[in-house]
């Protein structure tokens, strides 16, 4: 189990508030911290990584205590086996891609570097410097660098928010692939609902330092369980009337879909709404999120 409880006073843009969080989840799961910017998500990751110290709290990862304010335990970041991926990649600019990975290793294992470079499709770029890579490629390197030392927990701080939708989709797949293949325990910070639905086992919603809900994405965002045949989150781009029905154009990731809406739907939905489109049998159900 991973247990994380922490309190710390933060000064947000809307005045000071207290981060007060108590969260536990099983190993090999992917947990998303979801919330507005400035709600304390990143601080929580930094506390977990040992880069910031909470006023009080307790952190236990796979049976090892990393932080315990009552017993005065506080492992430095170097002693916590975390893989940290930043929004702006934080690759070492003076090292080549291969050197970036090599730096992350405790003992030299060139074979492992080769495997990871191959897995991420970066093999041909191995002797290039980070500045000559695209954002998506840089983030792949950052991911590989975080994974190469077999972290006990992988921390992703809005890793994809600076990327375009297409690259983002590809990297989401890649994160899932790595998460499963290496049996990682992963915490992802995100404010993108599509990303949350696609990647996470559970999602914890953070609002001004407190966890307001924690559960599967469906439970959290719909407050109930549905047994949908298919479902996706999308945004309504336009609604138009065609004869006696209404047609809504929706954007879901890269895809544009058209969905038939009934007259009763129209009353609650408007352009720009984020909705869940789900289907049990024939007509899709459109639920406002």
């Amino acid at each position, binding site marked *: 189990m991973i247990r994380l409880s922490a309190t710390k006073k933060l000064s947000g843009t809307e005045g000071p508030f207290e981060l007060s969080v108590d969260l536990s989840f099983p190993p090999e799961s992917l947990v998303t911290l979801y919330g507005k910017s400035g709600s304390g998500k990143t601080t929580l990751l930094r506390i977990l990584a040992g*880069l910031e110290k909470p006023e009080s709290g307790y952190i236990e990862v796979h049976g090892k205590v990393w932080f315990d304010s009552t017993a005065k335990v506080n492992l430095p970041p*170097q*002693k916590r*086996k975390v893989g*940290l991926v930043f929004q702006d990649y934080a690759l*070492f*600019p*003076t090292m080549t891609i291969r050197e970036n990975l090599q730096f992350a290793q405790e003992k030299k294992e060139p074979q492992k570097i080769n495997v990871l470079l191959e897995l991420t499709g970066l093999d041909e770029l191995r002797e290039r410097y980070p*500045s000559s890579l695209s954002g998506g490629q840089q983030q792949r390197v950052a991911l590989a660098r975080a994974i190469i030392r077999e972290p006990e927990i992988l921390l992703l701080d809005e890793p994809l928010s600076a990327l375009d939708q297409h690259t983002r989709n590809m990297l989401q797949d890649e994160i899932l692939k790595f998460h499963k293949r290496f049996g990682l325990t992963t915490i992802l910070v995100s404010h993108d609902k599509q990303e949350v639905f696609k990647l996470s086992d559970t999602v914890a919603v953070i609002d001004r330092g407190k966890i307001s809900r924690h559960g599967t994405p469906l439970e959290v965002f719909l407050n109930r369980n549905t047994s949908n045949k298919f479902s996706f989150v999308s945004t309504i781009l336009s609604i138009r009337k065609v004869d006696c029905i209404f047609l809504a154009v929706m954007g879901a990731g890269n895809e544009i879909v058209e969905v038939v809406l009934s007259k009763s739907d129209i009353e609650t939905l408007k352009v720009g709404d984020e909705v869940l489109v789900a289907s049990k049998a024939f007509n899709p159900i459109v639920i406002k999120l």
Partner: protein
Amino acid sequence: MINPEPLYLTLKLAGLTTVILYAIGLPAAWLLSQSRMRLKPLLEAVLALPLVLPPSVLGFYFLLAFSRQGWLGAAWERIFDHQLAFSFDGLVLGSVIFSLPFMVHPLQAGFNAVPRNLSEASYSLGKSKLETIIKVVLPSMKSSLLTGGVLAFAHTVGEFGVVLMIGGSIEGKTKVASIAIYDLVESLDYQSAHIYAAILFAFSFTILLTVYLVNKRLDIR
């Protein structure tokens, strides 16, 4: 022909000063860049004093401190068995203090310019602070390292007032090139003064040109 000794002394003084300043300046600049303590502005102000004080003022205080009756001079004489004022050692010590801001300021700016993320990424990859500084931070601020060293070196080469106050003009000991020129002009030997001056001029220009050329290349990468 001119006596090469003053030129040699100038280079030796500037070289030694620069090496010592790297040793002092790197830790000092790193601490200043990390620190958030209340005394920091005071420290920074003291450090920047040599930039604004007339060299004669600094030199005067150095002379008082370095002399046999001064606290530093007396202690020095007890340990090293020779006088600090009017010796080459005294010149080096004076130059180090006089040129300190020229080393520390670029280095501090360099440390500040390296994104904190890089150090944090390195810590979370299990690397100690020292290893992070050596392998991640310093390589990312090469142009600051170069600028600090060259400014300190060039400033020491161009020193006059402080050297005159605490070193005098002792042949082969404290008579550096800038002092030699002053002496020659005083004795109306313009031709020798010209030679020294031209050499210093060409030397300084070449150094600065090289720095700007190299820095441009470092910036591009």
